[in-house]
Each structure stands twice: as C-alpha cells, then as structure tokens.
C-alpha cells in the first residue's frame, strides 16, 4: 500500500550535466517498492509547485531509495538544490512494477536518455529473482548523457552504447541497435525513454515477434488513479476512445497495447 513518508536526503549529487542522483532514507516505501514503480516527490513546502513530481526508483535498498533525475523545469531544478540532511515528503510506491517472467531466456533493457532511470532496479530484480543477467542498450544524445553504464557493468550486464552524435558507441538510435542484435524468440524487451524512441522500439519488437514492455510518462496530478489526468490511448476499441491511466494501470505497459500515434 502506498503511503506518505518524510524522508531524509542522504545524498543529492550531479552525475552528468543537469542529471542528479538522490538517495533518500525511506524505510516504509523502500520496504514495499518494486522495480518499475514510482513515487511522487513534494518539491517544496507551500503551494508552488502545486503538485508532486513523479520519479521512478533507480535502486531500491532495504531502507532507502535512489532516484536518478534530469532537470527539466522548475520542480526538478528545485530538487537539484535539496541538501543532505533535509527532510522531504515522498508518496509511494505507486503504479505496477515490471512483471518478471521466468520463461524468457534473454532480457534486453532499452534505455533512451533519462529513461534509464528505472533500469538499474529492474536489472537487479531480474538478476535476483530470475537468476538471469540482462543486456542493456544504452542510448543518449551524446557520450556525457550516457548514465549508469558503470552500474550495469558492476552487475555483470553487457552494455551496448549508442549516441545520436556518435560520441560513444554506435551512431544510431536504440531501436536500430536492438534490430541489429536480432534477438531470438525467447527474448523479452523492456524500454523506457522518449515517446518516439519507445514507439520505434515497439515497431522493431513487433517486426521481430518479441514481447515489449514500455514504461511511460505523462503529466500527473494524483499518481493514484483518481484524477484521470494521465491517460494514454490504447489500440483496444480505438473508436470508443479507450485509454489507460499511466499512474495506476502502468507506468509499465505491454507496448503493443498503446496507441503510439495517439499519444
């Protein structure tokens, strides 16, 4: 069950330009959190910003959580100024975790930019729960935006790099790297990143006949499935305008369910 917890910031440091890693003491939330779920962080006391900010769990420790985030606007800029020792209010865990299916022999995590955020926790879960070591396709604009490479290496993962400008790894999109890998039928693909990137990854998976899970983003108010603000359209019953709530039905979805042209 989700809860609201006052959490002490242990660490909050820049890991790449405009990207930060924060570790907070959150025994209650951490005790229930699973990879793929997220939390809602109160950025500042008072009414500005008005809403909490959704953030995935990068790592889930026994008593604490790690959050990897990019400064996008006012809220994340304020977060970047949190200092160790400060107490912040966090609501979570929210949403559904990545399903962990033992029937797959190969697990491929496809990350675009800050979309890598939920994957260290996922890799750890796949290793710990399924006893498999996932591979990672790590894509970003350029070399210095490739995050978590060391973490994945430490976990024993093979990491394929790709950058838009060719400054590291292949000069290619993540989806193209996946296509070239051409994984066999036993593989499971997980993707998280910009919408266009996830859409392309889903196309590749459907071409290759692979299942694909995507972790989506949307502007959120409640994070709890209440406000119906965070919906994305699905392909089931398009006429009727069917949709799912990213916060409550996801954020992880079967990528084939999402109407990528409608988002």
């Amino acid at each position: 069950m989700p809860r609201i917890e006052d959490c002490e910031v242990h660490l909050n440091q820049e890991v790449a330009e405009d990207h930060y890693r924060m570790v907070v003491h959150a025994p209650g939330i951490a005790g229930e959190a699973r990879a793929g779920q997220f939390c809602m962080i109160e950025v500042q006391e008072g009414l500005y910003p008005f809403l909490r900010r959704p953030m995935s769990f990068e790592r889930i420790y026994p008593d604490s959580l790690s959050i990897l985030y990019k400064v996008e606007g006012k809220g994340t800029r304020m977060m970047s100024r949190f200092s160790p020792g400060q107490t912040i209010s966090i609501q979570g865990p929210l949403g559904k975790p990545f399903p962990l299916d033992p029937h797959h022999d190969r697990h491929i995590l496809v990350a675009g930019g800050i979309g890598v955020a939920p994957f260290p926790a996922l890799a750890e879960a796949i290793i710990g729960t399924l006893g498999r070591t996932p591979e990672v396709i790590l894509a970003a604009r350029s070399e210095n935006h490739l995050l978590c490479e060391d973490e994945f290496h430490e976990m024993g993962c093979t990491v394929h790099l790709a950058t838009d400008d060719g400054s590291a790894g292949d000069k290619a999109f993540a989806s193209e790297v996946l296509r070239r890998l051409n994984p066999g039928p036993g593989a499971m693909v997980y993707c998280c990143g910009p919408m266009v990137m996830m859409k392309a990854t889903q196309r590749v998976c459907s071409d290759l006949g692979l299942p694909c899970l995507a972790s989506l983003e949307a502007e959120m108010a409640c994070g709890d499935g209440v406000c119906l603000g965070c919906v994305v359209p699905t392909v089931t019953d398009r006429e009727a305008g069917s949709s799912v709530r990213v916060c409550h039905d996801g954020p992880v979805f079967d990528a084939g369910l999402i109407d990528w042209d409608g988002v």
Partner: protein
Amino acid sequence: MTEDTRTSKQPTLQINLGGLVMKNPVTVGSGTFAYGEEYHQYFDVSRLGAVTVKSLSLEPRPGNKPPRLVETPAGMLNAIGLQNVGLDAYLREKMPFLRAHGCTIIGNIYGHNPEEYAELARRLEAEGGADAIEANLSCPNVHDAKNARGCQLVAQDPALVRRYTETIRNATGLPLFVKLSPNVIDIAESALAAEAGGANAVSLVNTLTGMGIDPETRRPMLSNIVGGLSGPAIRPVAVKLVWDAARAIQIPIIGMGGICNASDAMQFILAGATAVAVGSYTFRQPDAAIRVIDGLEDYCARHHVERITQLVGGMQL
C-alpha cells in the same frame, strides 16, 4: 464555569445539508476522489461527512484526449471531459465498496439534457446508489472550445438552471444539490434559480475556465485547449461567490475551491457555506480532507463553539 463545561465537551460537527445528515461538514470535490477506493489506502474514507463521487453519466464516457491536465501557479487546469464508468458500472462495481464502508454518498451526475439528469437521479435513488444528488450543471470540459464562444454552460443561464433543477426535482425524493459555475456575472441569480427550481442546496463552485499555451511548441497545453482552473489559486474567487450567494438564498451552500486546510474551510463557512469540499489539494496531500475535519474540530474547541453550524455565515462586518 460554563466556559469549562463547554470546552470539555467535544464540539458537534454534524450538519444537516438540505436534508442530508452528515457527521461532519466535509466532503470531497467530485472528480477529485474517484469512487473512494484509491484514497482508502491512505485513510478510512468513511470518516468523511460524505463522499462525492466523480460525475456519473448514463453511458460510460471516454473523456477528452490527452494531455488533460497541466499545473498552474497554486493550481491546475484540467480537461478530463467527464470520463467515467457510467451509471451501471458504478452501481455494480463502485457503489458496493462505498456502502460496505458505511459512507454517506453524494451522487454527482451529468447528462445531456434535463431528462438524462432526471433518469440518473431516479436510478441512483431506486438502486441506493446515493444519499443525495449533486447535479453538475457547470462542467467546462464537455464542449468544443475551438468553436464555442465564451463557454456555454447550463449554469450560465438562470432560466435553464431552473428548468433542469425542476425536472430533476420531480424525479427524486433525495436531497438535491445543484453545482454552479463561477463563470457568471451574478452568482446570486443562478443560486436563486436553483432554489426556485427546488434544489435543497447549491454547490459553489466548479472550476473557472482557463487555458495555457506552451511557448516552445506554440501549442495549447491541453488537447481540448480550454480547461477548468482549480486549486488555491481560485480560493478568493470562490469565497466571494459563496458570500454573494449566501446573502441571496435560504438553502444551504457547499463551498469549494482551493481548500487545503481547516483555516481555508473556515473562510467558506464564515462566508456562508454549511458544508465544504476538498478538491484538487487531495492530489497533493491525500488525507487533506481528514486534516480539515480534525482542524475544524480543533477550531471549534479553541473558539468555544459547541456546534459548527453556529459559525455558518458568521463573518463579522
């Protein structure tokens, strides 16, 4: 001595809202609490004076395309478009939870014409789906903003308010509340029309119309372009409308608009609201409504007020 006896007694928060007895004056804004299940994870929802459910229509509604919401300074814009499961699914899947937990239910309804509203009220009453009806005549998000000029709500036309209210009134014996729009020149007119039509209370207010444009993409921030502004940003406007209506009508008022805590709620009560609803702030703080209840009890005790009803309209001029 009297002083001592007074403060030692628990103040009474119970109210009678146009025939609906509530154990405290605090409900939630329709559409900000769904049907209660989610927030029951955070607190016992039966502690609320009543649960007001998301607007129900006869058929399920898919709502508007995303993006449907955007944060604004001390508030938010939404254009959900009354997405809801529809009456049947509500009665089958949602209502039982609320009943099982002993909640008092305010059934908020939305229809395309007076008859649909009447049908919704009739069926909610017949099937025990609500203890009172709140007719939403003021949702700004069910129109095509591109082609509408101003916004065209039932609640903006007193004659229509009266006609809709009368039709619903004839369909149900449940306490009937009519939810009005802040987008009017004189709220007293709309409130008087609801009263004349047989409403037992008016709900003030729904969201203000507003919009946002992303300067980088030059596109509207909401797919429906225009949305409803809610949250603390609009509170001063809402308090003023409650005060205006309270001086004109005899029936009670459910005040809402940006309530975050008991002190905010007291502003509405002192302005003339008998009950209050906590809306958007619940998204920030799920148990906000419970804190308001506790805070009102505290307030009464501190001010040696035996019954909260003594404070309604109690602003000192």
